[in-house]
């Protein structure tokens, strides 16, 4: 029973981390129709910045998180301007190549700057203590991660459904040409969404660092995980992404607990099975 409970909490926390990191990818893919394999690399950059700020500079956790988000966005802006702009509307293969190229570069640079070792992000005292729920104790960090995931989901929902920008965003996702004709500055919508997506990735990379450890191959190791969330959940769909994250988090965590010797075997098997059953995503929207 204890195991089931632990698996449940870990799965929920893991799913939430996946959600925070991937939701930006999902929205930008729905919006710009770009197959972006480098998204995980931005989460990794966030993790590195936070680790550097908290461990080497001795700054507080909250400050480190802020720095990571802002810093990653600042790094991403020129990348978007110089490289991503060139592949909007290009064939899928071109997008794959460009974004894999970006991923490889970021991995190589991270390896050069920070070395191949694992980087930790010291968390504040309060997050390290176990929290009693009355009948069970849980790691405060897990609860914090779950809370972050819920906050992001709610915040995004509000942002997309209830704000003027959200209206423009949804219009652009549905039909960019039409939105542009109606006076929506799609370039601005793209730029803001890209920045938000990258910022969320960095945020997820930092708060999830205990579950997805920061090291140079992070961007490759979890590439398929983030992509599968989008393709299973359906690009641009928040509920779809949330469902996909919880499902995949559950499968991966259960596999690790019960059959660690199989590594990620069951995870990839599940990925294939899910995409096989829902080739157009859980939400069922084509492309």
């Amino acid at each position, binding site marked *: 029973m204890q195991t089931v409970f632990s698996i449940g909490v870990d799965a929920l926390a893991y799913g939430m981390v996946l959600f925070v990191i991937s939701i930006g990818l999902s929205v930008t*893919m729905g919006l710009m129709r770009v*197959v972006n394999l480098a998204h995980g690399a931005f989460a990794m950059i966030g993790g590195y910045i936070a680790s550097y700020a908290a461990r080497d500079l001795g700054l507080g956790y909250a400050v480190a998180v802020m720095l990571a988000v802002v810093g990653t966005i600042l790094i991403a802006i020129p990348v978007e301007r110089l*490289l991503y702009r*060139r*592949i909007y509307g290009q064939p*899928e*293969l*071109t997008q*794959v*190549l*460009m974004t*894999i*190229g*970006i*991923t*490889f*570069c*970021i*991995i*190589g*640079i991270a*390896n*050069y700057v920070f070395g191949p070792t694992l980087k930790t992000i010291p968390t504040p005292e309060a997050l390290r203590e176990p929290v009693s729920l009355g009948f069970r104790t849980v790691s405060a960090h897990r609860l914090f991660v779950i809370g972050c995931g819920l906050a992001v989901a709610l915040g995004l929902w509000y942002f997309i459904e209830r704000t003027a920008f959200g209206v423009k965003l949804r219009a652009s996702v549905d039909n960019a040409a039409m939105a542009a004709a109606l006076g929506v500055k799609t370039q601005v919508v793209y730029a803001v969404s890209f920045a938000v997506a990258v910022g969320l990735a960095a945020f997820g990379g930092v708060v999830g660092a205990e579950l997805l450890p920061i090291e140079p191959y992070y961007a*490759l190791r979890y*590439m*398929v995980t983030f*992509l*599968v969330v*989008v*393709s*299973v959940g359906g*690009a641009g769909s928040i509920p779809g992404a949330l469902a996909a994250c919880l499902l995949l988090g559950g499968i991966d965590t259960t596999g690790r607990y019960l059959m660690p*010797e*199989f*590594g*990620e*075997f069951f995870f*990839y*098997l599940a*990925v*294939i099975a899910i*995409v*096989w059953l829902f*080739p*157009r*995503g859980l939400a069922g929207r084509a*492309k």
Partner: protein
Amino acid sequence: MALLANSDTISTAGDRRARLTRDAIGVLVILVLAAVGYFLFPNNLALLTRIIAIALLVLSLDLVTGYCGVATLGHAALFGAGAYGAGIAAAHFGITDPIAMLAVGIVAGALAGLVSGVVVLRAHGLPQLVLSIAIVHLAHEAANKASGWTGGSDGLAGIMPDAVFGLWQFDLWGRTAYVFGIVLLLVAFVILRQIVRSPFGMLCRGIKQDPVRVRAMGASVHGTLIKMYAISGAVAGAGGALNAISTQVVGLDSLSFTMSAEALVMLVLGGTGSLYGALIGTISFLWFEDVVSAANPFHWLTIVGALLIAVVLFAPKGLYGSFAAYLERRGRKGR
């Protein structure tokens, strides 16, 4: 009318001769390069043989990506299937005749191609890409877990191929393996040139350009692609088997995502959809890797990434494609 028909048959025969000549030149160039490599780098034949094995993988990738337009990041699974197929046949079943090992590798590759084709072609776009990545990861994890058969992360050792036709023993310098590889590459190349030019190859190119039109002609898109995937698997499997035979060991890296991605990089670097591009891309990439990683192994990934970005931005047709386009432009001006 008679005159017209006459001139037509002449032009058809002429066309055919021109194309055969071009293929003959291709074969000749490969032979010359092979001889040059043999005499210039007698101590580096192992690297040259590895280039040949990878070239088969990249050729095989060109079949599905370049000719059929299916983007995949999991093609190493087919190469690895061939390598492990040949390796396991030798190490566990005593099938040590190199031709038989090659045959096992080809069959294993074709089967892996068939399976991944069925899986990958289930979806389109991003989900398709995800499936292809998941396949190579799954194969990797499976090979890692089944260490009794595959040697796991230590690699599969104990592969001792016999002499080729009982005459040519595999030597320490890798001369036999090199010649074996060159012959294999030539045979594969000639067969593939034939296939891509055949009605079947034309159908594949059609699918890449407009699958709806292909269906409207009454042809099966899915069936054709699956067939091509199996052929592609056979070629990649041959490459894997060659690698197993020449290095006498099979490692998990032959089933890796990185290998799949690098194969794609090599293909795009050389240029898709011509087979020549696949060869040129493989040679340039692996030669470059050898030079650069000897200088600084840590920067290798950065350089590959930068190379990819540069190709996408500045030479989207690849080395061979850009060269061919240049020739075509000049030829037209000349006319």
